[in-house]
């Protein structure tokens, strides 16, 4: 993952006349593509464009603050003992609290203090920073509710808000064995879809109890009301491995899908 922002907006200057009611932007921040799609009568207004730009700025700010690839980020300084949590910014302390809640809520399977292989005890909130960032940045778009719907995607995790046409967003779920294919799709008006897996960047999810790479699942997708928690739960499911199939039955108010290493698919939709 490069520390630099890889490319500037591809979309901000293109004025495609095809659909007056929708628009999309893409930038690369935190080493991942950030895709924002909007729908509604204001979709192509300068106000919405500046809101998207402000959201992207928020994400760059969060990258600078949390990146473990930057020596001068607050997280790097905390990891090197140059900064204490007490002296850190409000955002860093917020994320630390959320990491603690995530540890508890997942029964220890989402563990920001056991996320760096070979370095137990080192605080690395990277797994939560992306969705924290999107949730924070998306407030610029929430300001247009209820007349603007949006899909705010960051590296495959997506927060969605209903558009005034009341058509749900259709979200494809990638086949973890073939990035060019979708395995399933799900309609979501208002909520979030998060997928975690062992497919990207090698096996990047660790079993916090053994320190070894998590096995058993190729990917876990969780659909729920909150992007941050959907992602935490999806990550915890991958860490649990095959045992996750039973566990997801307890996550009420969510739906989702697991793909095991043998290719079996387990789906669920739990009532609220």
């Amino acid at each position: 993952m490069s520390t630099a922002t890889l490319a500037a907006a591809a979309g901000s200057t293109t004025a495609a006349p095809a659909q007056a009611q929708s628009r999309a932007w893409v930038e690369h921040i935190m080493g991942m593509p950030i895709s924002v799609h909007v729908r509604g009568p204001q979709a192509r207004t300068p106000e919405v464009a500046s809101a998207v730009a402000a959201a992207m700025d928020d994400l760059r700010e969060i990258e600078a603050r949390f990146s473990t690839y930057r020596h001068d980020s607050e997280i790097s300084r905390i990891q090197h003992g140059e900064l204490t949590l007490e002296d850190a910014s409000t955002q860093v302390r917020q994320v630390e609290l959320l990491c603690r809640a995530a540890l508890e809520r997942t029964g220890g399977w989402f563990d920001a203090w056991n996320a760096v292989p070979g370095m137990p005890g080192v605080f690395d909130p990277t797994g939560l920073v992306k969705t924290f960032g999107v949730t924070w940045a998306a407030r610029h778009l929430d300001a247009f509710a209820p007349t603007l719907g949006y899909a705010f995607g960051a590296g495959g995790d997506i927060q969605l808000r209903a558009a005034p046409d009341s058509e749900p967003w259709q979200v494809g779920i990638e086949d973890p064995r073939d990035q060019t294919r979708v395995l399933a799709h799900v309609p979501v008006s208002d909520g979030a879809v998060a997928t975690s897996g062992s497919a990207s960047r090698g096996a990047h999810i660790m079993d916090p109890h053994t320190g070894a790479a998590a096995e058993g699942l190729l990917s876990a997708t969780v659909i729920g009301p909150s992007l941050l928690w959907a992602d935490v739960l999806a990550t915890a499911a991958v860490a649990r491995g095959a045992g996750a199939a039973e566990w997801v039955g307890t996550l009420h108010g969510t739906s989702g899908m697991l793909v095991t290493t043998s290719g079996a698919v387990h789906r669920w939709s739990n009532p609220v």
Partner: protein
Amino acid sequence: MRRIVIAIGSTLTGLVLLFSWPTSLNRSVALAETSTTEGSSSTTAASTDTSTDESATDGSATDESTSDAGATEGSTDSSTTTEATPSTTSTDGTYTGDSISTEFGPVQVQITVTDGVVTSAEAIAYPNTNSKDQRINSYAIPTLNAEAVEAQSASIQMVSGATYTSNGYIASLQSALDQAGL
């Protein structure tokens, strides 16, 4: 009197539901409806598709279709009618609701009734989480594509996946969808 008891019971239930919703994970084991599909047939996929699209499961339609959500939303004005009526005797006193276990600990609500009026209601145990995700929703089960089709031919707008880094983006389906929407 009977109405008061019902109202109190409903309020109690509503409060417990409200407090327990996002985190009372253990409670839902019995409710949980899971399905395992291995190479499911195309008819299954197709029928799921139509039912999820038109019926209950995304946010906009929740109110009419999900009795659970209805009960929770109605709780503040005590309008729940599905509450099983308890015995109808004297109403004054302190009532403690059932403790509902959650991953964060028990949720329990206590109310005090004086002269048939609820004079206080408080959670005597509750999960101390910062739960921003209080939206009452239930979500559709993902529909398997009968054959894994390419995104361009399906009417999807976004792709959720674990493989998205900037390095792989150009070749990704999301990239194609973004280009289409620019």
